[in-house]
């Protein structure tokens, strides 16, 4: 057991992955000498050298496109996109190449590429630094998409993502980088592509991932005080979805709420609502409700607290689903 911040857990996970496999290479803007703007790669260039921790030119398509070539040569690139809002110059390479090459080559060219993206708001940043683009990637077959919510998952899931033979878009809740928790470096972690019940409950099933898991747990805590029993599930994997535990839960509770920061329309909540409704139709006492960002341009930071789902908005919708 060691206590780590989420950021440090990612750093340790990267270090472990690099020690375990000499083919693991880190690429990104400012990740070497600086250690990354969030210091997630701190110290790694010093210890593994510039050939394995590559400070790249300022071009996201270049980062992903050259990672594809490195993967073809047998490497396992781990690419850092500096902020969520800056993944789009690489979108063409991710969607038309990274996601398709395994199928195009019928398995002859695996793409074991990990794309790390710090995502979400709440840090008072300027434009493009607080986006939640995960649905774009979950809608893209050929990619696997995960989001971590706590230090232990950060440590283990990052290593699992790097070891995964398929491309993984790895979302990191940037506003939780500084959250601390105990990490058992010897445990056997659950599979990468699995969701997990993080709080048991009977009245409502509350689904979250990434930064919103903490918010969901706080909401459940507050609701408990009012005698409401909320079951909280950390989805962890966004593509593929692991809805087994969700369906088991919803069949008991009959009520389901999904929360995420991303804009509500066509966010992950839409897909989950559609699937859960199909699989649990006769158990549902109310429609699956969503708490997400409003369908507006991410606002200037003075307004982000009003834009982002928080404890109150979650409880507000929980009340709606209970009262339906």
């Amino acid at each position, binding site marked *: 057991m060691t206590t780590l911040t989420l950021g440090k857990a990612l750093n340790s996970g990267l270090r472990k992955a690099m020690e375990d496999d000499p083919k693991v290479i880190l690429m990104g803007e400012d990740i070497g000498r600086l250690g990354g703007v969030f210091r997630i790669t701190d110290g790694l260039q010093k210890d593994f050298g510039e050939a394995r921790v590559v400070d790249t030119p300022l071009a996201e*398509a270049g980062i992903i496109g050259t990672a594809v070539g490195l993967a073809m040569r047998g490497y396992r690139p781990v690419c850092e996109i500096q902020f969520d809002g800056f993944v789009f*110059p690489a979108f063409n390479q991710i969607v038309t190449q990274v996601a398709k090459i395994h199928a195009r080559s019928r398995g002859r060219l695996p793409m074991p590429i990990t794309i790390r993206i710090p995502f979400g708001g709440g840090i008072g940043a*300027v434009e493009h630094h607080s986006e939640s683009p995960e649905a774009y990637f979950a809608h893209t077959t050929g990619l696997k998409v995960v989001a971590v919510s706590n230090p232990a998952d950060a440590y283990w899931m990052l290593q699992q993502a790097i070891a995964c033979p398929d491309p993984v878009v790895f979302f990191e809740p940037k506003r939780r980088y500084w959250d601390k928790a105990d990490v058992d470096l010897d445990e056997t972690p659950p599979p990468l592509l699995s969701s997990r019940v993080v709080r048991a409950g009977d009245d409502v099933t509350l689904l979250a991932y990434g930064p919103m898991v903490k918010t969901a747990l706080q909401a459940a805590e507050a609701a408990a005080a009012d005698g409401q029993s909320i079951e909280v599930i950390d989805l962890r994997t966004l593509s593929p979805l692991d809805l087994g535990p969700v369906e088991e839960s919803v069949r008991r509770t009959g009520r389901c709420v999904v929360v995420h920061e991303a804009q509500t329309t066509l966010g992950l909540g839409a897909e989950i609502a559609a699937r859960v409704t199909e699989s649990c139709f006769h158990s549902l006492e109310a429609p699956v409700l969503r708490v997400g960002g409003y369908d507006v341009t991410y606002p200037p930071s003075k307004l982000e607290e009003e834009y982002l789902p928080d404890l109150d908005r979650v409880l507000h919708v929980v009340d709606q689903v209970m009262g339906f």
Partner: protein
Amino acid sequence: MTAAPEIQAIADPVPGAGAPHLPAQPGSGPDFVQLLTPEGERVENADYALDISDDELRSLYRDLALVRRWDVEATALQRQGELGIWASLLGQEAAQIGAGRALGPQDMAFPTYREHGVAWARDVDPLHVISLFRGNDLGGWDPVARKFNLYTVVIGAQCLHATGYAMGIQRDAAMTEAPAAALAFLGDGATSQGEVNEALIWAATFSAPVVFFCQNNQYAISAPIETQSRVPLFQRAAGFGFPGVRVDGNDVLAVLAVTRAALARAREGSGPTFIEAFTYRMGAHTTSDDPTRYRLAGELEEWKLRDPIARLKAHLSRSGKADAAFFAAVDAEGDELAARIRKGTLEMPDPAGTEMFDHVYAEQTEEIAAQRASFLEYHAGFEGDEQ
């Protein structure tokens, strides 16, 4: 840039590190336009004659001094928690004032997030820039009235906008409008973005009236210029079929002359120019950055000797074009400006929550109108609650 020996040492093991490095400081000569030496000596350049009045010289000094004062105040406000972040222009005042003052009223400028000096030259209220970094808005000025686009944070994206705008100028000209040009700002790091290179290609193909003004401040956050290019950036333009020129970015006179010439060339239909203003980011990338992690203090000391304001001050005083009273007056004006910025910042009202719903579309959708209504209803629910 000066790759300090220690950083060199780190750099060597990387594949490709054999490649040539940039000169510590480009000498003068055709490849480096300079009209005012670091020591404040006025030198001539055959291609870029500049005949300038003493008044103009003094007003250039005033601009340089005032934007630095603004910048210092903004940094202080950020430290005191009044701004979320601040991107300092320290060291780049001459590049920005020189370029900004070269613009005509009909020209349109496309800044990055660091062009406070150009904003100043375009008469943008500093508080309208401050409000962005405070998180009140995404840019408070009127880009149409000021002919100064909103800051573009996505590296390089504005270069295509400037080129398209220039294509619009060409089409208006066909409809006999006054000739104008677009001025796109970019950094050395931005030159690696595909979109920026596309802008150069489009500008060449359509011979668009656009000037690309690249402030090579030697760094893209922590990445030294060698990360982006092994040869001087201005040379890239020739490969796309138009002229590139490297100017001393810490020499406001040279920047003014070179940018004026390029804009004139664009307006008269002779096509684009790429200007590399060779300068140095004397401060951190932003207030969130810690440059000590990636560069050595010695480098900064060296560049202090090339300070853009000091050299003009030296020239003005030595030549007797300005006296102590003048400099004192500018300092006083700077303090007033700083006080006004501080007061305006502290008194800046927070935006209303409904703001975020009101500008997504020119024609608002029912969806967003409905979300706006439920937003108000939801918050009305808290009325009276303590919070």
